[in-house]
């Protein structure tokens, strides 16, 4: 029993830790993305791209993936092949090159297009709901499942002890029917 609880807790911990890990990695997005950059943006043949350029490119694409393309519903300006999206991408690049922070660039686009331009709602105030509700359901659901499994197995343990023992013995014979060894039947 305690084992299954442990297993569930482990899965839960993994699930809950993941967004945290993500949040941490988000802080390092630029750095991470920068390390990928040589693959993402090949230097032109013969030419070279300086480290600063590839950092800029990586920051641009990371930021551009969070901004919504106004003419092609649902796609980011990083993904969209549309002309406006390409131009907005170059605005992002220029702003970053001019030394603005990600937050400032985002604020610029919000001031022009409204919050609508962000593909992921800003995580504060009312918007927290959209992040919190699934987590509540997960935590509540895990609690419910643990409770149910506990009560269902408790009944079985509570029943006649002999039944459990008999089942264990019979299990040797009957289990292959439904258990792992069924391929032989």
């Amino acid at each position: 029993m305690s084992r299954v609880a442990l297993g569930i807790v482990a899965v839960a911990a993994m699930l809950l830790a993941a967004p945290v890990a993500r949040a941490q990695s988000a802080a390092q997005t630029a750095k991470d993305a920068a390390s990928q950059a040589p693959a993402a943006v090949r230097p032109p043949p013969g030419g070279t791209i300086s480290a600063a350029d590839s950092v800029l490119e990586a920051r641009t694409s990371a930021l551009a993936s969070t901004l919504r393309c106004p003419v092609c519903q649902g796609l980011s300006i990083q993904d969209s092949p549309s002309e406006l999206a390409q131009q907005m991408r170059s605005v992002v690049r220029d702003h970053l090159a001019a030394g603005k922070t990600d937050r400032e660039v985002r604020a610029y686009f919000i001031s022009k297009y409204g919050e609508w331009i962000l593909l992921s709602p800003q995580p504060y105030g009312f918007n927290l709901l959209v992040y919190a509700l699934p987590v509540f359901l997960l935590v509540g659901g895990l609690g419910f499942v643990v409770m149910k499994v506990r009560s269902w197995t408790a009944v079985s343990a509570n029943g006649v002890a002999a039944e459990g023992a008999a089942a264990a013995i019979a299990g040797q014979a009957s289990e292959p029917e439904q258990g792992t060894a069924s391929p032989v039947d």
Partner: protein
Amino acid sequence: MTRLVAVDALWFALIACAVGGIVAPIAIARGKRQWLPFAQAAVYANFALVTIATGAMMWALATHDFSISYVAQVGSRATPLFYTVISLWGALEGSILFWAWVLALYSAIVVYTNRNRPGNLVPYAASALLIIALFFHILLVGPANPFHLVSPVPLDGPGPNPLLQNHILMAVHPPLLYLGYVGMSVPFAFAVGALLSGEAGSDGWIRLTRRWTLLAWAFLAAAIIAGMWWSYEVLGWGGYWAWDPVENASFIPFLTATAFLHSVMVQERRGMLKLWNINLVVGTFALTILGTFLTRSGIISSVHAFTQGTIGYYFLAFIAVVLIGSAILIAGNSDSLRTDGRFDAPVARESVFLLNNLLLTVFMFTVLVGTLFPLVAEAARGVKVSVGEPFFNRMTLPVIVALLFLMGVGPALPWKRGSIEDLKVKMIPGTIVGVILAAIVLLLGTRNVYGVLAFAFAGFAGTLNIGEYVIGVRARRAAHGESVLTALRRLFGANQRRYGGYVAHLGIIVVAVGIAASSTFRTEREATLKPGETMTLGKVTARLKDVWGRNEPQRDVIGATVELLAASGEPYAVLSPRMNIYPMSDQPIPTPDVRSTPFGDTYMNLMSFREDGSSATIKIINEPLVPWIWFGGGVICLGALISGWPTRRSA
């Protein structure tokens, strides 16, 4: 003429559904079973009549009968016949007609194959199907009537939406989607039948329902994958899934149906989760109607959404009826839906199924909340917000990784009572494969947490599922001395449902690997080339040969011919990314060209061009393992086919 036949057929179908839908309940209530054949007849009549109406529409489309409003809306003399006929599902009214036809087809098959089944379950289920059909017929003679008379008759029409006449997959994806979506009506009808006939507590209806759910599920899976493929081949951004509301609408019921296919096994074996399962069936159906509502009412903006009208209110009323009616029916049967089984031990396959259902429900809920949140935020704050890819990726990737983990653990655990020690032993090869895959992915340079985790757990789950075949084949060989192939074949024969299920698992793992690889290792490059110039992306060297233009009856086409060069400088492939310019559309529709190999695609898009042909801007995207997604979709369907193939033994 065509118009009158079709309109009359629809009105008669409406009457047949209305009468047939109430005959069975009345007949059963009054003990007049001799009336029941009328309900059956209504189902067949409805199928015949809707077939006439649908055939009439296809005929009208093919013959350019612009006196019919739908033809005047989507038809055009210049459009090739094939695309004209499939524009039956290219706009709102035609798609509702097609929906009604698919529903009529399912109803007829359900009633025919169960015509000798005793009891009241099937008559009630037929009633439910007829009432659902009645709703669609009301739409067809009311707000979504495709057969309005147009006067004066126009000489030509604008043609279908350019995006919908740009690719052959438009002939595949929508029918599959409807077969999947509408197919979920059948389990729902059985659930209603079981609730009304008092059979909800027994397992008969669930066995009947299971295979129908599997069929609709497989169609839905195929439709989702085909939709991804269409998006990839047509939209020109090199991706296949954008978490667009319409994509989500097809995905949400798929998740609840997946949950049902697993939890139903717990009910069959242990007599448990009855209430949960019936809720999943009802919920899946309600979610298909909700998805249709979202895409047909214009309530949420989306690439694929059709134009709006009053139709949204009809759907809303129908959703309300379905939800309230089901809630009352389920409450009325709460005694027979009470769980009477119990678990032998916490560590057993049952528990994994519970967790799997929890995660699938959380997954479904996350996508649903994210899809509806813009509406909620606008209602609450008066501000429009977007919920798109970054949100969905962040929120669902942990769940997906956990599901992959369970997909490996579940098959490795026996029913009733498992042991942690056995499980640990079984998990060793999977863990090794997972760790190796993670290491390889890390060495290849990615630092994306979920990319690494997805590869690791896909490897883990894949190994454990394959391991089940190995164990089974070994056992057979030891017991019967069969050859490997015979043993494998008999393994499937002896337990097709279980081993078919593992095939579906492997399909999903293949899809997961394809998605993980293509999103983690995608590279792209854009360059403006003059004819003769080359550009390089990774191992791909491309040379622009020329830029050309061509007039087709329904559109103008601008294209670039680009050669892919081998190391020797010899071209080994030619790609022709194009832009199609339709008269009724502001912007050109990009048409990428793709060269596929088993290990990845070279995806090429024409971004812009000089009108004199002196240069073109080409974007090349290197898409590793993307074909695995389409292949995996096929494997999923194969698994469902093996699993659900009717045999005398299981029938």
